[in-house]
């Protein structure tokens, strides 16, 4: 690719836009996942767990689902 070709600015702007949008999507997925996992860890640290994640005795004591 020649960098002094006519209209090269349009080509570079297109690849720049693609890079920005793709990086934005990747960051969105990574940061969203990290935030959700942190929320679950905080809830579990406060003793709130899904029934399937609790020890068997705790789950029995909790009784059937409402």
């Amino acid at each position, binding site marked *: *690719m020649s960098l002094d070709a006519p209209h090269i600015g349009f080509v570079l702007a297109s690849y720049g836009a693609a890079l920005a949008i793709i990086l934005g999507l990747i960051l969105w997925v990574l940061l969203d996942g990290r935030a959700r996992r942190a929320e679950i860890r905080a809830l579990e640290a406060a003793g709130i767990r899904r029934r399937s994640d609790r020890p068997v005795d705790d789950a029995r004591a909790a009784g059937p689902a409402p």
Partner: protein
Amino acid sequence: MSDTSLTIRRFADLANPTRFLALSARLLPWICWLTAALFGLGLFYALTSAGDYQQGETVRIMYVHVPSAWLAMMTYMVMTLSALGTLVWRHPLADVSARAAMPIGAAFTALALVTGSLWGKPMWGAWWVWDARLTSFFILFLMYLGLIALNRALEDPTRAARLSAILILLGFINIPIIKFSVDWWNTLHQPASVLRMGGSAIDGEFLRPLLLMAGAFTCLFLALHLGAMRNEILRRRVAALRRQAARGALTAGGPA
């Protein structure tokens, strides 16, 4: 057990979000590596192949514009299948899939519009024209934004899922309009030259990087969609845990 019932059982197994999380965790690294490899190879050919005798270097815009436009429409088709999954089969992951795909589809549509505009200015002499292909594609972008807004505006997730699914199915009419707009109406946009009866009309010099980049974009979509679905499942788990905590607090406090 017959092959058909085994396939159905395996598909039904995926309805369990925990199994889906385990399976997607195993698949994701492979898809990410494949995406990186395809992007490496695709970009190498996209930036080193010969320029077009008429368009010169601007032909290279095609290698990001066309795959993003394909993906914009493919994402909508994935959402349509998910909408059917929500309304017909009531698959627990169908709404998760549709909701996760919406921002990805909007982003690919925006990229196709921006790169199309950047290609249009030097080739047509205009950033934008209100012709059939461009207008129908712009409507697709507005539909994505509308669906995102609707899906997030409704607090009841079941109602949001059903309403979004109905709107997705209604909006599907725009996909064949986009595809065939270049045949049905006079337009500045060129007609189909890769996926058409009689085979591709593009020389191998341009087809190779185009198909490699299309493969890279498709794998990128798969990776992003799986990742966003995993996040959506975790978001719903957080909401369920919060409800559980609120119920526990009410029970502990007793009646007023």
